[in-house]
């Protein structure tokens, strides 16, 4: 068991969850006081000793399922799931494929967890077609099973059945019912996932599966390869992250380095001590609040990156004297107004995509054209107080770079930064012309996930 805990801790560390030696020792100690056949207790004990941040929970759960799913480690006493056959059937083979959905619906309605579990397990054996030894994470198997079960049909029949029980049918009741049904279906999905994972783990061993699982913390998810679910997770992680960052920056502002010596007041005060400057007085530090000008590429490939950067900057807008934002694809438009008038960043982003005029010709990014038009229309307003930040992958679709325009911006502005959401190894490959621009930037940073974005913003303020 202790070996298992150590392997588990290593897998967590591989996913960037910090687990110290002390914490894994605590976890092992905790398990000595624990009834090992009670899986939820094992989970609770491991969680409380090894995890110290709620945003790590998802990774923990994913890996926990792999390392401690029933049947994959030595329990105190081996208990297999009771096979709960619905009445009137002799074995699961008697049930045909269509009926299984009907039976799942019935057990959901009755809240019969055991029977549901065994039905789901039977469905997985039938539909998933698991091939032993294949190094896959199981997503495909889950997809096959759920498709055969036909979740939409299950949903509508469950909905109808619940409807009949209800007497009132006002719209609020409908909505709440809908939510209930969705929760029930999520439960089935999770059971399918768990069951498949259990089978894969017993086939290939926990550590091997953990490697293919690629459990990632939200702040390490790559913006460029995030799917819809990942994006939701990033935005969820963004809120507390920004909150913490703001507290940290505010704290630094208040308690940071003191200003220079206030000579006049020091001498004035020293008169009280007969001319001995016993107490030194300093000027109050004047916080420098940069004026930000953000110029963001919002073409398809880098749109989500721009979205997160903009929402982080606007959430921290107190830290800056002024934030102006521009978005572009092959034409540029100012969107400062849109962001200032709405308090929800998501809504603002939607408005931006409908209202801003960012397409000129073909809707492929053209950095050179955009820079020229930017300088032409707003160049006057760039002063030595402005910090200009470009967001984009510098993939110019083989248009001319016109980097001399950026050089003229650099001469006027306080600083020019560039954030590129691509891994730095890919810069200057294909149509990326990062190096033609980077000579005119104060710094060019790779910014692929929240972690890198956070550290950039912190340096900026």
């Amino acid at each position, binding site marked *: 068991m202790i070996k298992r805990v150590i392997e588990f801790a290593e897998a967590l560390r591989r996913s960037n969850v*910090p687990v*110290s030696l*002390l*914490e894994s020792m*605590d976890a092992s*100690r*905790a398990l*000595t*006081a624990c009834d090992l056949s009670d899986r*939820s*207790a094992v989970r*609770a*004990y491991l*969680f*409380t*000793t090894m*995890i*110290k*941040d*709620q945003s790590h*929970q998802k990774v923990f759960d994913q890996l926990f399922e792999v390392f401690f799913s029933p049947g994959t480690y030595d329990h105190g006493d081996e208990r297999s799931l009771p096979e709960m056959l619905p009445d009137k059937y002799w074995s699961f083979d008697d049930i045909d494929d269509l009926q299984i959905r009907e039976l799942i619906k019935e057990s959901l309605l009755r809240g019969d967890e055991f029977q549901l579990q065994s039905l789901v397990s039977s469905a997985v054996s039938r539909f998933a077609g698991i091939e032993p030894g294949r190094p896959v994470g199981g997503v495909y198997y889950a997809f096959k099973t759920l498709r055969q079960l036909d979740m939409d049909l299950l949903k509508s029949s469950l909905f109808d059945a619940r409807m009949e029980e209800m007497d*009132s049918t*006002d*719209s*609020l*009741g409908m*909505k*709440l019912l809908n*939510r*209930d049904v969705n929760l029930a279906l999520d439960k089935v999905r999770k059971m399918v996932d768990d069951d498949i994972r259990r089978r894969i783990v017993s086939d290939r061993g926990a550590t091997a599966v953990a490697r293919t699982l690629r459990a990632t913390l939200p702040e390490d998810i790559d913006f460029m390869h995030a799917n819809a679910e990942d994006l939701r997770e990033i935005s969820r992680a963004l809120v*507390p992250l920004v*909150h*913490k960052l703001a*507290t*940290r920056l505010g*704290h630094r502002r208040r*308690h940071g380095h003191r200003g220079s010596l206030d000579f006049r007041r020091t001498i004035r005060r020293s008169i009280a001590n007969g001319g001995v400057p016993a107490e030194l007085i300093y000027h109050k530090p004047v916080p420098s609040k940069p004026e930000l000008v953000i110029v963001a590429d919002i073409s398809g490939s880098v749109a989500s990156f721009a979205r997160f950067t903009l929402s982080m900057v606007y959430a921290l807008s107190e830290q800056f004297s002024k934030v102006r934002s521009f978005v572009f694809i092959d034409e540029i438009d100012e969107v400062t107004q849109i962001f200032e008038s709405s*308090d*929800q960043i*998501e809504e603002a982003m939607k408005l931006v995509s409908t209202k801003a005029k960012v397409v000129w010709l073909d809707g492929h990014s053209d950095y050179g054209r955009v820079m020229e038009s930017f300088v032409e229309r707003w160049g006057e307003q760039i002063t030595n107080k402005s910090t200009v930040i470009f967001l984009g992958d510098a993939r110019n679709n083989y248009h001319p770079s016109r980097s001399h325009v950026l050089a003229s911006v650099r001469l006027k502005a306080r600083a020019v930064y560039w954030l590129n959401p691509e891994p730095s190894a890919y810069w200057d490959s294909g149509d990326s012309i990062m190096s033609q621009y980077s000579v005119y930037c104060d710094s060019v940073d790779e910014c692929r996930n929240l972690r890198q974005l956070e550290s950039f913003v912190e340096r900026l303020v």
Partner: protein
Amino acid sequence: MKDNEGKFRFSAPSEVGELLSGVGYLPSVEISSVLFLADRLKKPILVEGPAGTGKTELAKSTAKALGARLIRLQCHEGIDESKALYEWNYKKQLLRIQSDGSSSPWSEVESNIFSEEFLLERPLLQAIRARDPVVLLIDEVDRVEIETEALLLEVLSDYQVSIPELGTMEAKQIPLVFLTSNNTRELSEALKRRCLFLFLDYPEKEREMEIVTSKVPGVSRTLADSIVSFVGSLRELDLKKRPSISETLDWALTLVNLGLEEVDESVAKSTLNVLLKYRSDIAKASKSILSS
């Protein structure tokens, strides 16, 4: 571990559950197992979670269930040793020196004025030196500066306080310690390492229903069910302030007092202000849930 079996406060997680339910706090399985473990491993518990999920209440109820005295340290920015640990009562020291005149030698006076008589105990020292059973609650620990956090470390890992003039004070007994945090700031690794972690989220539907039915007399199962699912659906929205457990209870009480048996749209609309405290939140909720 066998030989000091009798010293533990709880014999099993289920006992924690019973004790807490006895004083009106319905714990989840997770809460009881963490509490049980904290007692076994002699470690403090770091409780995090959204506002209004009963973080502070947990410490209070535990104290009540154990019949222990609750010692509370409310943290705020700028809190320091003299407010958290101990302070010398210097006014009294001064009086002592003055009343003495100059008759006795200084070394004697010095050892006199740095004795326990002149020591003002602050919460942490109080908890360490208590002889009766105590529960120590360090509330909103994320409000203290990172430098001050270090003060807590000695107390939390070794259960002792060092006072230069008096030496090291060790705990008479190891108190149960709760730290709560609203997660406005990343706590230091050192502190987190020393604690067990407990995240109190909004309760699951079943548990919240139990809470509602036990705390609000006269609420029927069906009413509780629709109350809890309505509040649950509100919490899924992106609100400035999501309704907490206490607001669920307030709302349930409101509905019961209005003599209602069911939640329908007009009722929900007219009493939404019990659950939500911002105009923009109310508008958003009516738009996305109530309008059809």
